[in-house]
């Protein structure tokens, strides 16, 4: 319970951060050339100044900036993110529709990167400065340097165009909407390449951290104690080193949550996934600033939630945290 209250307090402490972000981005967007009404009128194929005036009044855009900000925050408290003129729906609805693919993609990529990062990190640390380590570390460096969108394109060329194993884009087959197990398999097939693409750079980061962290922990005194007890090397690793070495990895998930969400903008664009990232891109191109602001809010919220879970996980792993409270 102590752990929960500790993480809860951290969660409460991030509310001011959230407001700081919203206010900052809101004010920033005021500097943008053109507003929602301009975008709307452009979409309608132009219109006269009087209509624009009316529309501005309708959307409350004729008010002063602080009043608009106040309005926005007041609506936000009631979970109202405003109206997207481009999509003709409330922003909250638009975002909710786009959320599942992104969350699925992030979960899959994170699991992929974490699992293999851990595995390869341990293998590399066990054979430090021998060939498995050299191979894994080199691959890690190359993965880290690979632009994700480029890797995605090349994966499409190889797996979709030449081998024709996997679909080249989309979330599910549009032609035949499938249900049940087949539907799940269909979505899974669509997500294989995006997951690899998004996860690759994080795999590289995780394996590097895991390797370094393992080497660090292997040098600590209590590992010598474990060996002095007569424990064999495999058990030294599994019982004493692994959990200690995992701590920096877990911290990293929290720190990288935002980066990963940012990465999904690019990956979703490459694979035409109807997710939050692609929505962010579209709203920039279409100058749908209301939706953009909503995305800023939701993605910050997502990052905060991930960090909350990471805090809980960390406290479970490390008894020293709960004592500090």
């Amino acid at each position: 319970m102590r752990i929960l209250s500790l993480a809860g307090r951290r969660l409460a402490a991030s509310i001011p951060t959230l407001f700081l972000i919203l206010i900052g981005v809101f004010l920033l967007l005021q500097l943008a050339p053109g507003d929602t009404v301009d975008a709307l009128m452009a979409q309608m194929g132009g219109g006269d100044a009087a209509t624009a005036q009316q529309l501005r009044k309708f959307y409350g855009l004729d008010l002063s900036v602080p009043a608009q900000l106040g309005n926005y925050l007041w609506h936000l408290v009631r979970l109202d993110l405003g109206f997207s003129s481009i999509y003709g729906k409330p922003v909250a609805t638009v975002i909710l529709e786009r959320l599942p693919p992104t969350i699925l993609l992030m979960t899959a990529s994170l699991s992929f990167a974490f699992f293999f990062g851990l595995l390869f990190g341990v293998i590399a640390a066990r054979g430090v400065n021998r060939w498995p380590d050299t191979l894994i570390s080199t691959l890690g460096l190359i993965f880290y340097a690979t632009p994700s969108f480029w890797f995605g394109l090349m994966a499409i060329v190889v797996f979709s165009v030449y081998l024709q194993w996997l679909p080249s884009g989309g979330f599910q087959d549009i032609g035949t909407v499938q249900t049940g197990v087949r539907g799940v398999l269909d979505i899974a097939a669509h997500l294989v390449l995006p997951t690899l693409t998004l996860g690759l750079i994080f795999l590289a980061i995780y394996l590097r951290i895991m390797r370094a962290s393992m080497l660090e922990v292997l040098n600590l005194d209590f590992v010598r104690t474990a060996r002095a007890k007569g424990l064999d090397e495999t058990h030294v690793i599994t019982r004493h080193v692994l959990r200690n070495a995992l701590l920096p990895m877990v911290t990293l998930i929290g720190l990288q949550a935002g980066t990963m969400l940012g990465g999904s903008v690019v990956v979703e664009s490459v694979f035409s996934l109807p997710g939050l990232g692609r929505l962010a891109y579209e709203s920039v191109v279409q100058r749908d600033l209301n939706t953009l602001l909503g995305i800023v809010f939701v993605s910050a919220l997502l990052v905060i939630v991930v960090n909350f879970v990471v805090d809980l996980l960390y406290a479970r792993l490390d008894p020293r945290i709960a004592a500090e409270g």
Partner: protein
Amino acid sequence: MDAAKRYFRSPAAVIGLILLLLIVAMAVSASFLYPRDPLALAGRPLVWPFSNPRFLLGTDNSGRDIAAQIFYGARISLLIGGVATVIAILIGILVGAFAGYYGGWVDNVLMRITEAFQTLPNFVLLLVLVAVFGSTLTTVTIAVGVVSWPAPARLTRAEFLSLRNREFVQAGKTLGMKDLQLILGEILPNALPPVIVYASVVMAVAILLESALAFLRLSDPNVASWGNLIGLGRDVLRVQWYVSAIPGIAILVTVLAVSLVGQGLNDALNPRLKSR
């Protein structure tokens, strides 16, 4: 000088440095080797690489020389990566040094702001900045720098936090040094090496961020950038995949070179880490 010796003892670090120098050479020699505008029409579109000696790396969908764009693209990548890194590191050191040295409410305020920047996905912020300020070379460079400073700030702060209670800093205080003397003369020189090493990570990420932005056609369309070319090649990906593949390799090699140099610097500057 020990550090230099240690650096050149690592083959990976030397390879990284050679690659980086090659890329710099490409950037420098671009206007001698390809005096024409790299974005101007040069020949038939979609010539495959190595099929026409005039266009060693072929041409893209609008008949522009890919090799020329790769050479000029090196300029853009290094320029944006370099300048954005300098911006990010400078902001980072400034924020981190003050937060770490003074602690208390200064630290609180600065860290809240840093946290806000880290909570917002950096690429989303980049999109917002580009949406507001447009996509010229200058705005994109500054925007990439502005989204990259939180990590170096945290690193600098952590270094300052551990150094400010070190006995030699306390000794400086008892000698009567002013805060600025302590920050600049005593702490910063000792805090700098890890930050310098981290600059290589910032630069690698900056290059990747800019290329991703360019790929989405949100960067400056009027310069020859590798990301632009990949985005362009996407339209002909199914057959003429080389248009996208070649600039991608250029990005990969550049980021790899920067990372290798950074790792080499790290091992050279922190020898005790290497010993195990």
